[in-house]
C-alpha cells in the first residue's frame, strides 16, 4: 500500500503537464511545485524497498515486481504510460561491471514496466564522458542484452530539447534544457548505480539524473552543471524533471575513487523507491555513509523528500542486515567525515 510522502503526494496534473507548465509559464509553475510537492517537511513516512540480490543471474524481474508492488507501483499507475529508463552509463569499459548499471537490471525493469502495461519503454542516457553513444551501448553490454531484443534506445546528449523553467532554486540557472524524450515521458525512472563519487561523495538515483542533461548544450562532462555546483545542480534537476521511480543497482557497486576508477564492491542489493532523497539516504546507510553529510541530500531533506531514518519506512531487508561499508578515501575531500 502506498504511503503518503513527498513524492507520493498525488498531483492532479500529469508529470508531462507539470514540466510543460515550466515551458510556458514562470511564477505559476513554481507555485505549483510549492503547492503540490514537498514544500514542507513531510510528517508521514515514505517507503523504500531493499532486496537482497546475490548475483545478476537471479530472477531480477520477480525481485523488481515484488519491490514495485511493495512501494505501491501498480498497473493502474503505469498502464498506457510512456516510460523512460535512465541507467548510469557514464563511462563504460568492457568487463568493468562496477561502473555502470548492469544491463540485466535494466532489462528486468523494461520487462516489469511492460508487465504493468506501459505503452512504451525506452532506455535513454546522455553519457557524461563519452560522445559515442553506440560505443557506450556496446562497451557496457547494452547492445547484446537490450538493443538486440529490439528495446528502443535514445541518446539524450543529442536529442532535440525544450527549455523549461528551473523549478529548483539551488543554482542560478533560470532554465534547464531538457531532451524531448524526457519531456514526452510520463514516467521517468532513474536506474542508478551504487557508487562513491570523488566530487559528490556518492552517486545514486539523484546524481544519476545529471545524465538526462544534454551534452550538446551542457558539454562533456556536463561542464555547465559542474560550474553551477554539483550538489546544487542535482537538486535543481530533480526538482524540475519530477522523476517517478528510483532503482539503484547495488548488486555490485563501487567503493574508493568513484565514479570511474574505484574498485568493485558487492553490496548485493537492489534499492527501490518513489522518493529519491529517501532512496539515496537508504543507499548511503547501506554503504555505511551518513546521508546528512552529503550536501545534496542535506539540501534535499525536507524540500524534495525525507532523509532521516524515522521518516523512511524500510521494506524488504533491514538496513543493518545488508549494510556493507564502502571504503572511503581520506585524500578525497568529498569523502571525509562521511562514515556513519
Amino acid at each position: 500500500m502506498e504511503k503518503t510522502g513527498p513524492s507520493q503526494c498525488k498531483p492532479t496534473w500529469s508529470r508531462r503537464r507539470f514540466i510543460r507548465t515550466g515551458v510556458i509559464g514562470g511564477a505559476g509553475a513554481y507555485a505549483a511545485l510549492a503547492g503540490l510537492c514537498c514544500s514542507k517537511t513531510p510528517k508521514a513516512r515514505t517507503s523504500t524497498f531493499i532486496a537482497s540480490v546475490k548475483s545478476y543471474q537471479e530472477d531480477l524481474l520477480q525481485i523488481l515486481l515484488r519491490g514495485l508492488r511493495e512501494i505501491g507501483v501498480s498497473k493502474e499507475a503505469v498502464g498506457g504510460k510512456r516510460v523512460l529508463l535512465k541507467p548510469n552509463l557514464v563511462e563504460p569499459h568492457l568487463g568493468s561491471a562496477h561502473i555502470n548499471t548492469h544491463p540485466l537490471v535494466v532489462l528486468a525493469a523494461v520487462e516489469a514496466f511492460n508487465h504493468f502495461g506501459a505503452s512504451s519503454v525506452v532506455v535513454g542516457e546522455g553519457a557524461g564522458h563519452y560522445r559515442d553513444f553506440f560505443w557506450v551501448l556496446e562497451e557496457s553490454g547494452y547492445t547484446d542484452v537490450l538493443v538486440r531484443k529490439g528495446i528502443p534506445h535514445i541518446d539524450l546528449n543529442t536529442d532535440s530539447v525544450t527549455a523549461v523553467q528551473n523549478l529548483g532554486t539551488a543554482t542560478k540557472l533560470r532554465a534547464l534544457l531538457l531532451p524531448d524524450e524526457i519531456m514526452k515521458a510520463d514516467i521517468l525512472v532513474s536506474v542508478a548505480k551504487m557508487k562513491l563519487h570523488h566530487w559528490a561523495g556518492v552517486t545514486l538515483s539523484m546524481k544519476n539524473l545529471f545524465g538526462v542533461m544534454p551534452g550538446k548544450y551542457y558539454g562533456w562532462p556536463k561542464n555547465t552543471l559542474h560550474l553551477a555546483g554539483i550538489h546544487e545542480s542535482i537538486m535543481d534537476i530533480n526538482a524540475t524533471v519530477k522523476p517517478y521511480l528510483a532503482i539503484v543497482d547495488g548488486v555490485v557497486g563501487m567503493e574508493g575513487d568513484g565514479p570511474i576508477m574505484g574498485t568493485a564492491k558487492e553490496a548485493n542489493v537492489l534499492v527501490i523507491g518513489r522518493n529519491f532523497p529517501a532512496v539515496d539516504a537508504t543507499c548511503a546507510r547501506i554503504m555505511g555513509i551518513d546521508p546528512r553529510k552529503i550536501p545534496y541530500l542535506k539540501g534535499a531533506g525536507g524540500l524534495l523528500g525525507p532523509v532521516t531514518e524515522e521518516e523512511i519506512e524500510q521494506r524488504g531487508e533491514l538496513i543493518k542486515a545488508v549494510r556493507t561499508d564502502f571504503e572511503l578515501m581520506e585524500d578525497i575531500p568529498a569523502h571525509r567525515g562521511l562514515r556513519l
Partner: protein
Amino acid sequence: MLNPIKGAIETLLNREHDEGGFSATGEGLIQPDATSWAILALSAAGTEKNKTHKTLAKLVDFQQPDGRVVFAPRLSSVYWVTPLAVCAWMTSLEFKEPRQKAIDFLLAHSGFHWENETPEIVGHDTSLRGWPWVSGTHSWIEPTSLCVLALQAAGLKEHKRVAEAVDMILNRQLNSGGWNYGNTVVFGSQLWPIPESTGMALSALEGCVLKQRIAQSLGYAAEEASLIRTPLSLSWLILGLGAWSIRPALAREWIQESLDRQKQYGEYNTSLLSALILAYYAPRGFLSVLEQE
C-alpha cells in the same frame, strides 16, 4: 544493391532541406553542427559545389554579430560548433567574411583557466589555454582539437593560440597513450583514454609535433580502430591515423561495416553519417579535405 558508402551519400543528399541546411535526421530543425558536417562530407566525396552552396549560406544564419556560431541566439554560450562552421566555409571560395569573423572570435576567446595549485587533485596544467564546450567553462580535448583544426585550415598554424593549444593537448596526453575527454590524473589515478578524443587530438596535432611524442597514442588508436565499428569513434580514429600517414589498410571495409550497423541501431544522424563519409574519402586525415580546395 547500392554500395553502402554510395547509399550513405545518397541518404545525406536526401536530407538536405529545400532552403539549404541539414537537421539531425532529415526532419526537424536545421542544426549548424549537422550542416557543417554534411558540407565537409559532401565536399570530401566530391559532390558538385552548387549542391552545397545554399547550405553554406544557410550556415550564416547561425552566426552571431561577434562571429560565434551557435545553435540558437538564446544559447550564445554554446559556441563549440564555430570551428566546424569555419571548416565548412573553407570548402568554398565564397563566405570569406563569415569565416573570418568566426576565426577572429575563436582567437579572442578561450575556456576558463587558472594556475593549478592542487596538482594532487587534478594532474594537468590548468593554465594552458584551449577552447571549451560552453563559454565560461574549462577547455577540453575535443573542442580544442576542432579549433586547432579550423585555425590550421585557415593558415594560422603558426599563431600563438594554436601553439598554446598544441601544448595544452600534449599536456593532456595520457602517459600510457591516448587522450581522455581532457583530464589525465585525478586524485592520483590515471584515467582511461577515449577513442574519439584520441582521434581528434591526433588530427589536431598533425604537423605540429614530432611523431615520437605521440607514438604511444598512435599505437592505442591503431589498436582501437581495429576493434571499434561505431561511427563516431571509428571515424575519428581513422582520420587521426590518416593524418599521421598510418591509415589502416582496411579502413574502408571497417567504415562499410560501421554503416552496416544501422540495421541494428537505426539510421545514423547526419553528423555521424557525415563523419563516416569524410573518413572514407580522406585518406590523409581531416585537414587533407580542406587542403584540396
